[in-house]
């Protein structure tokens, strides 16, 4: 008798989260088997790539990753448009770093104006991430939610200590929320429970189980994602059935292997950085990532090709 590979069956299904306004909707999620296990179940949707855009020109990007954006770094609107038109971004992830109280400390209304301008310029869905400051993010994202009503933006990162205002804003203005938890299955689930308890529909949530780059904790995030996915599919655990957002672009370009420029024995710095980001992206895809937040256009291109090949 010929060998028959064992096949797992699953009871659960990943929720489908719709992003974008009426004219530019895309949906992620819907998986009924482990990622790319086509022999076990359908995976009808491709993972999507959101390209990072900063609301002020970043001052610490290595030239390898800054180069493709050289002409647009100081204008988020043009930058976002370039990502969409030239680099084929499925989504834009706009980071409101200027709102950080320890930095430029821009006020929420001003930041929201940038969001509005970006949104008007692009036709792909938007994800807006605050600066990561617990208190300020609550205020900023509330304002952002208000000016983007109806556009099903992903608001984030919503964390244990500020999920209330962010979730309330998402409920009020009908957006999605990305919940950020510290590399732990239980904590990711707890945050989902807390946000849904406030009244947010479960299919307006994506999980951000923390980003990590190759060589810098990738395997931890990988195993957490895998466990979340197994709980969702095998145990039909409703509070882990959210699509997963992987925010690793900025982690990759912090790694010395990606950003070091004057180390000829390590090879071409640009190529090295791109591959570092791509390798991270590939791992995240296999672990179950649904939305990848990435930085370098060439890494995005490689990842897209990789997705095509995996899907075919």
């Amino acid at each position, binding site marked *: 008798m010929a060998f028959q590979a064992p096949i797992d069956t699953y009871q659960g299904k990943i929720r489908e989260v719709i992003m974008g306004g009426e004219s530019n909707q895309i949906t992620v999620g819907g998986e009924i088997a482990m990622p790319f296990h086509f022999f076990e179940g359908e995976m009808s949707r491709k993972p999507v790539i959101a390209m990072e855009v900063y609301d002020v020109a970043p001052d610490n990007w290595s030239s390898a990753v800054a180069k493709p954006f050289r002409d647009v770094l100081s204008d988020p609107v043009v930058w976002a448009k370039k990502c969409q038109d030239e680099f084929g971004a499925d989504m834009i992830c706009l980071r409101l770093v200027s709102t950080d109280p320890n930095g430029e400390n821009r006020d929420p209304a001003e930041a929201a104006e940038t969001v509005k301008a970006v949104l008007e310029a692009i036709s792909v869905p938007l994800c807006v991430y605050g600066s990561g400051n617990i208190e300020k993010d609550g205020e900023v994202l509330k304002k952002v939610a208000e000016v983007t009503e109806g556009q099903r933006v992903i608001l984030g990162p919503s964390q*244990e200590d500020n999920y209330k205002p962010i979730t309330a804003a998402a409920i009020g203005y009908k957006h999605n929320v990305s919940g950020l938890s510290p590399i*732990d*299955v*239980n*904590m990711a*689930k*707890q945050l989902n*429970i*807390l946000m849904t*308890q406030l009244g947010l529909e479960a299919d307006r949530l994506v999980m951000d189980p923390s980003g990590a780059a190759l060589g810098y904790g990738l395997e931890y995030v990988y195993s957490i994602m895998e466990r979340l996915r197994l709980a969702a599919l095998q145990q039909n*655990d409703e*509070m882990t059935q959210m699509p997963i957002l992987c925010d690793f672009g900025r982690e990759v370009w912090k790694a010395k292997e990606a950003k070091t420029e004057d180390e000829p024995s390590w090879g071409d710095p640009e190529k090295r950085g791109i591959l570092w980001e791509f390798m991270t992206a590939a791992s995240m895809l296999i672990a179950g990532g649904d939305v990848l937040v990435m930085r370098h256009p060439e890494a995005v291109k490689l990842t897209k090709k990789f997705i095509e090949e995996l899907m075919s």
Partner: protein
Amino acid sequence: MKHKVTFCPDDKQVEVEEGENLLRAAMAAEVHISASCGGDGTCGKCRVIVEKGVVEQRPTSKLTTEEIEQGYVLACLSTIKSDLEVRVPPESRLGKFIEREKAPASHILSAKGWEEHLSSWQRRPPIQKYYIEMPAPNLSDNVDDLKRIKRELGKEHGLEAEVDVDLSVLKYMARVIREADWRVTVTLLENNSSVKIIKVESGDTAKENYAAAIDIGTTTIGARLIDLKERTAVAQASNYNAQASCGEDVISRMIFSTKRDGLIKLQSLVASTISELLMKLADKAGIKFSDTSCLVLAGNTIMTHLFLGLSPKYIREAPYIPTASDFPWIKAKDCGLDVFGETYACCFPCVASYVGGDIVAGVLASGVSRSKKLTLYIDIGTNGEIVLGNTDWMVACSCSAGPAFEGGGVKHGMRAAKGAIEQVRIDCGTCEPMILTIGQTKPAGICGSGLIDALAEMFLSRIVDQRGKINVELNSPRVREGKHGPEYVLAWADETANGEDIVVTEVDIDNLIRAKAAIFAGISILLESTSVDISDVEEILIAGAFGNYLEIERVQTIGLLPEYPFEKVKFVGNGSLIGASLGSLSKEMLLEAKEVASKMAYLELSADNKFMDKYISALFLPHTNVELFPMVMKELKNR
């Protein structure tokens, strides 16, 4: 005798024992009446009208003669003497509380009645006193004094075993028997097969034979004086373990013990707490210190080591080996209990580094080791120890819960003593609480059961979220931003014993959630590793130094225990202390303790990386896997 009490206008009924307090009956019936003084009678808010039946009322100045004629009473000052119909007037109502399915009122197995367990063992204390009258020696009857005593013991009391004697007794014996004109009382220690004379006193003092049972807890030390002749408890006392100044948990105590003079200091601190308790007991009972002829102690392995002055250094280092698990009878004065010079002491045998004599004592006292029923025994203290099994097999594990359940590390925490808030209800509309204290006096703090109650109520009334964070946006003066973060006011300053607001802070809640998570995680792993489903467990026994009113329902609401039929959960009180008490009355029981200790298998949780995972998932109310708690979630929804 039971009486039925009906409360109008809610039309709620409850059956209670005669003599039960009317306010407690109302709480049991889920009828909520204003009560902010803890049942002291000073706030005068719990006014109700007795429409039918009889109550005994303590006098109060809070009611006018007219009101008394109309049938008004203060519920907290009334004891129930017959079936009753009680009306709660609008001004005493606290609003609508959370409706919940009632747990049977009998889920409390209090510390009274502990001696009934003793029926299963021979009632022969390890320390006996015999009064003998000897013929004075003469030239023809010229055996030595010791032989003379032994001869008389054999003749008058049928004592045939080989009798040994302490040198210290020999030193004073000759003088004492002569001064007493050959009429003396001899105290014997009967251990296993050997018998030893440990004291010779003048005259007949056989009636004055007392033992002290002591539970050496990491946070609290409990002691009980037992009249060995009457086989009754005559006094009880407890106090915080003075070692707490050297660290809150066993790990920090072990670290302290390795410092210079650390072990000596820890030993003398625990000895001083025990000494003070013993003196207090003797005072309370009106006996001489020297009448306490025996101490039976039960503590966890580290507490036992420290009491005996043994270094716990190697317990802390892998592979975690104690010096001994089985301990000899010793003289109390060798452990720094100088006042009790001739008193003998024994410690309950331990199982492993982190499962000690307190658990062995509790398992024996609560009957687990002789029961056919598959039982889960949980001792909730600074260390949470959990035992699963029955007479055929037992597996134990231990997890560090911290002192929160004993009121430690909690802003207004206190031991389960007079004035401690032990029951709490909170109105989910107004956030107003109803509190009852131990001894029904003005509240002085909160004890473990009060904290569990408070957290459960705060959770169900949405004052805290599932992560244990207080919702400061609630429109209530009781929820406020305090010095150390958000807090909830359980009692205002003018109602408390020390004139300070009694609050539950977010930090307190966090400590309590960590404590309950550790225990829940321990239970989960113990069940998993023995492939036992919670539904296969036939009985759950909870031990711990709580007050008298630990409510199983609330324990489940906060997710300390899995959801499980209420009627199969019993609260045994301080199992360790009850076990030690029984041990002082039965040497057979003490012998069996050795057997039980060696039979119990130990599961090391630190060897299992699943513990951390289970712990984090239990750091949530009631649990991250909410589907494990359908009843609690239903209650939360129906609030």
